[in-house]
């Protein structure tokens, strides 16, 4: 049965030199993107980064200023929204309040003049799939947020679109329900094999669901990669800072011994990144700094180790700091550390590894060179 | 209204200018001795016609009926007043315009409904608008309104006013003071002021109707007021006019009038 819900031809989107301006201000800047058939792709970025504009251009609600959008070999660029073989799940669901649940789901099939009997069958199927069959005769106003979202999903999927667009569909749900829906949605996508393009500003949501994440900022793609790639090997300091918690420290390149950099931070800490590790700019294909350059150093909070200080550290990749605050986040304990007068950094330790630390004297903060990432960019 | 105690008697000693009043317009049937009222303005009803459409001589209400059913059919307007409309048919038949005789009113209704109404285009409060907006050729009208309409015309030859025979309404607007009026002294003073020769002339010049004081016609002649013959009907016209009465047949007249309006609209 699930075969009938799968598209005959998979949706493969190709976006070339896409550009969009609103009143002279560019929202999407000359963007290229290939979306594979049947993948779960997240467009992730802060609000105003252009992710929703990109989605709306794929849906046909906005017309690009320049560029091409192709689905397989079909040019969608100037095709009106109602002719595109894509469907959308809207942020506020946008269910028709004057129709029942079943009528909402049947709406798309009626537009394509599907025979009445088939409409009944497919609506039944789609509602059963999202477990809203019992609510067929209710009006959307009588449903909870989560239920409305399932109906919105059924309404879009019943048309067997090549590509399903989801515009922050979870933002109105509470956290627990959201996490459950994430799992359900991911499983549904796997089973149906439809291309899902999911817009979100919530990095955890993106990390949890995506096959690939497109990190966007300022109308441009910052990085495309799997959840692990964008987390462990951010392409630039924006991605490094946007995905997960991050400590940034400014430092100056003191020496460069054949790719082995020696850095000195503003508070005189010596930092030795491991050459050829993930964070090494040369190895990651990022611009390499010269001696004397100011760079941004990123170290994840969970890679820091804390212990009681036995004196001023003489080794590199260590510094003394004072605990300014402790918070229990369930599975981890988070420390806010103060180095010198005004440098604040975060440390996260699994709860099971946390040891009692003095809050009135200095603690030693250590890290490994392999966990240090160096960025030359300003972001 | 006086019978119902709604008016207070006028104190003539407070209105010395009452002596300026023309005796033609004092001592009327509804208020002998001017106990309650003094004439404010007076006029009469007739009709005005477009001389390019209606070329024959026009003099009587019968002429009006004939023209309305003839060359001015569909371009005739009547006054929006039951008494005046009924007077067309009663006048044409030579009856008393104030008649309460059922048979005569029935006959009047028949003439109005069956003969006149189907040819009537509109019913107006004042004819001047209908003259100015054009499209009409025969309008029942008060003399002053007709004059106003004619004064606004580019072509003075186009329109002609008739004081129809055998009779028409002599109507009078009156001053009176309501019972319980808070400042009767001021009211008396106002009436007195309005009756002074100078003010009376100004008023006549403005509204286009004489106010019933003596010597007004001579004054108008001196000042060169336009179309004076439409303000001051000749004595022979005055002699044949009938003052309208509000009598028990008023309800019947409203009924006739409403039916005529409906018939015109059908």
């Amino acid at each position: 049965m699930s075969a009938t819900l799968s598209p005959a031809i998979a949706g493969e989107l190709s976006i070339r030199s896409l550009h969009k301006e609103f009143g002279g201000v560019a929202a999407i800047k000359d963007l290229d993107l290939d979306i594979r058939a049947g993948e779960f792709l997240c467009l992730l970025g802060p609000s105003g980064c252009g992710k929703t504009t990109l989605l709306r251009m794929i849906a046909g609600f906005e017309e690009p200023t320049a560029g091409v959008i192709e689905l397989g070999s079909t040019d969608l660029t100037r095709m009106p929204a109602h002719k595109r073989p894509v469907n959308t799940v809207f942020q506020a669901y946008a269910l028709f309040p004057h129709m029942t649940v079943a009528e909402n789901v049947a709406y798309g099939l009626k537009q394509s003049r599907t025979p009445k009997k088939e409409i009944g069958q497919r609506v039944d199927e789609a509602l059963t799939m999202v477990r809203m069959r019992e609510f067929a005769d209710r009006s959307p106003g009588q449903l909870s947020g989560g239920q409305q979202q399932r109906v919105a999903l059924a309404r879009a999927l019943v048309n067997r679109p090549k590509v399903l667009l989801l515009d922050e569909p979870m933002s109105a749900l509470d956290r627990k329900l959201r996490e459950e829906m994430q799992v359900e949605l991911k499983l549904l996508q796997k089973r149906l094999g439809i291309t899902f393009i999911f817009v979100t500003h919530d990095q955890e949501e993106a990390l949890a669901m995506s096959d690939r994440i497109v990190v966007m900022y300022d109308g441009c793609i910052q990085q495309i990669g799997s959840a692990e790639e964008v987390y462990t090997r951010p392409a630039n300091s924006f991605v490094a800072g946007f995905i997960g918690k991050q400590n940034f420290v400014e430092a100056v390149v003191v020496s460069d011994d054949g790719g082995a950099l020696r850095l000195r931070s503003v508070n005189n800490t010596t930092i030795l990144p491991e050459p050829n590790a993930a964070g090494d700019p040369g190895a990651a294909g990022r611009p390499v700094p010269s001696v004397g350059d100011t760079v941004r150093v990123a170290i994840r909070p969970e890679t820091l180790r804390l212990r009681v200080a036995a004196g001023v550290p003489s080794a590199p990749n260590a510094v003394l700091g004072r605990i300014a605050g402790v918070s229990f986040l369930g599975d981890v304990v988070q420390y806010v550390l103060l180095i010198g007068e005004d440098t604040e950094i975060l440390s996260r330790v699994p709860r099971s590894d946390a040891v009692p630390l003095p809050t009135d004297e200095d603690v030693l903060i250590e890290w490994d060179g392999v966990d240090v990432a160096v960025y030359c960019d300003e972001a | 209204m006086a019978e119902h105690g709604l008016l207070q008697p006028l104190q003539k000693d407070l209105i010395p200018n009452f002596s300026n009043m023309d005796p033609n317009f004092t001592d009327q049937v509804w208020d002998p001795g001017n106990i309650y009222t003094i004439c404010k303005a007076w006029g009469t009803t007739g009709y005005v016609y477009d001389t390019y459409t209606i070329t024959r001589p026009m003099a009587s209400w019968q002429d009006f009926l004939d023209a309305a059913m003839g060359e001015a059919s569909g371009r005739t307007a009547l006054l929006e007043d039951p008494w005046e409309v009924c007077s067309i048919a009663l006048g044409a038949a030579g009856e008393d315009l104030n008649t309460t005789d059922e048979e005569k009113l029935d006959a009047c209704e028949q003439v109005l409904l069956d003969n006149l109404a189907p040819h009537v285009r509109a019913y107006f409060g004042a004819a001047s608008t209908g003259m100015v907006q054009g499209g009409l050729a025969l309008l029942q009208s008060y003399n002053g309104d007709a004059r106003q309409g004619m004064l606004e015309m580019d072509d003075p030859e186009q329109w002609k006013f008739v004081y129809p025979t055998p009779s028409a309404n002599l109507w009078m607007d009156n001053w009176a003071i309501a019972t319980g009026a808070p400042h009767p002294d001021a009211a008396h003073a106002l009436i007195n002021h309005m009756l002074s020769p100078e003010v009376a002339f100004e008023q006549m010049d403005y509204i286009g109707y004489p106010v019933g004081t003596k010597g007004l016609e001579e004054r108008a002649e001196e000042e060169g007021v336009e179309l004076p013959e439409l303000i001051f009907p000749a004595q022979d016209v005055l002699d044949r006019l009938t003052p309208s009465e509000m009598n028990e047949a008023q309800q019947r007249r409203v009924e006739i009038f409403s039916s005529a309006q409906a018939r015109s609209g059908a």
Partner: protein
Amino acid sequence: MTSRFRKFLGDSALSFPTWAYMLFFFALPVALVMWYSFGFKPDQFTTHSMEQLSLGRYREVVSPTFLSVFTATLRISIVGTLACLVIAVPFAYWLAVKVPPGRRGLLLALVLVPFWTNFLVRTLGWQIILSPDGFVSEALQGIGLLGSPLDILYSRAAVQIGVIYNYLPLMILPLFVAMDSAGVQLREASADLGAGKWRTFFQVTLPLATPGVISGCLLVFIPLTGDYITASVLGGANGTMIGQLVANQFQNAQNWALGSAMAVVLMLFTLAVVVITALLALVVKAVIKYVGRVELPTGQHAGPDAGTAADLPEGSGVRQAEPAVSGTTTGGPHA
């Protein structure tokens, strides 16, 4: 004291201004008119007397004159309401959907500007426009569309034009509000699901604007039926409306009893038209709903559906998340 006052009035205390207004400016005057309608006119100088109550005035009302004028009035107000609707729907749609929000204020103001002018003056303006010697007449003759001067002033057609002009804003405003409040998202959803502009309009925008259509039609139809200014100014004899007959009874005949009876009959007739129209609309709506109904297969969840349902993440704990969902699935395959 206050609490006793509140106790006496109950929860309606807060809406005191509203119901006081309704009582003094609506209920009481209407009651008074109804009361007068059972009286009579005793003599020529008295407007009404209540010494003998009877239905006699109602028998006088239902005369051929009244009925013919009433039919004409009804025709003018029905045609007028429909014309307002036909003009206002595209305009309101354009204003709510096509015009950028920044410019809507100005356009709405333009719709309302005529309302700042006195009703009578506005209507008198149309006398000049529709006059046989007026500029419209001359322009139409000038371009050869008309062989003789425009012969429309003082006719039913002139009243029709006048009332459409006078009442159009009352139709546009509620329609605009209704179409605007439906929001762009539902129209986008409709387009997304494959409906073109016209289908979206007839299946989403217009149905959602139904409350606006209803209030617009009532706001136009009811006062239009009772209007007598437009008819007096533009109508002439064949544009006579029922309001003029009522006014005649109060002003010329000074017969408040008969005038009141006419007013009551007018109200009842107007109400009857509204009720009949509403019933018709309900029937039409039910028919549309029936024709467009979605019939789900009755053998619920049998056969292939079970397979689909079985694919769902039963163990994910999702069902516990929403009691309403899990509670109602007990009859289904998940149970």
